[in-house]
């Protein structure tokens, strides 16, 4: 039995761990957001004020980063299971990778820049 499975950064065991870790983070983030939106009136002022704090910007950035990792691993498993022709699978994976990477570039641009308050 191999015991060094976690040393491969893209191995199955590591992916499994990434999925769980990101899931835990996202649960807490969603609980914060749900608590906030249910207790405060949802208007632009409160929303903008809430999201403008540095803590929330960094947390949101981390949230989207983790979500994209989570989504990427998940989608790869789905295409691996259902799309058998290798070329088709890899082209679809590449398109999805481009979409996720484009979001990774777009998000810091809007989140860490100045909001037009």
């Amino acid at each position, binding site marked *: 039995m191999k015991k060094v499975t976690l040393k491969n950064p893209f191995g199955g065991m590591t992916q499994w761990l990434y999925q769980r870790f990101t899931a835990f983070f996202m649960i807490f983030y969603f609980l914060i957001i749900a608590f906030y939106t249910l207790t405060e009136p949802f208007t632009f002022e409160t929303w903008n004020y809430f999201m403008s704090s540095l803590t929330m910007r960094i947390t949101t950035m981390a949230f*989207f980063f983790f979500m994209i990792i989570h989504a990427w691993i*998940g989608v790869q498993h789905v295409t691996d299971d259902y799309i058998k022709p290798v070329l088709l699978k890899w082209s679809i994976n590449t398109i999805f990778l481009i*979409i996720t990477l484009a979001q990774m570039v*777009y998000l810091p641009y*809007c989140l860490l820049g100045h909001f037009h*308050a």
Partner: protein
Amino acid sequence: MKKQQKNLNLMTINFPMPAIVSILHRMSGVIIFLLLPAITYAFCYSLKSKDHFLNLISMISLWPIKLLGMLLVWGLCHHFIAGCRHLLLDMQIGNDLIVARFTSKTVLTISFLITFLVFIL
């Protein structure tokens, strides 16, 4: 060697409740992934200015977008709750057949209930 018999006729296979939750977890994940660009764009759009925010709110009340939004709300709810169940199963909680069936039914009902509540509001 004798070839293994397979029955993959979707009409005759009996899907237990946990299997349905599992496949819906996967499907909702794919739905969320496909709508992710729209989510990120709407998120950034809502923070641009008050006009943008109100514009977005009025856009959401259009029925095609509202339908898509409801699909997204259901997908998020189901993925969230089924994911929590999955994490509990990983921790050896609720692994018994009876408990697993009960929690899978609970997951389905709660996600539909929340979607219905959001639809009313």
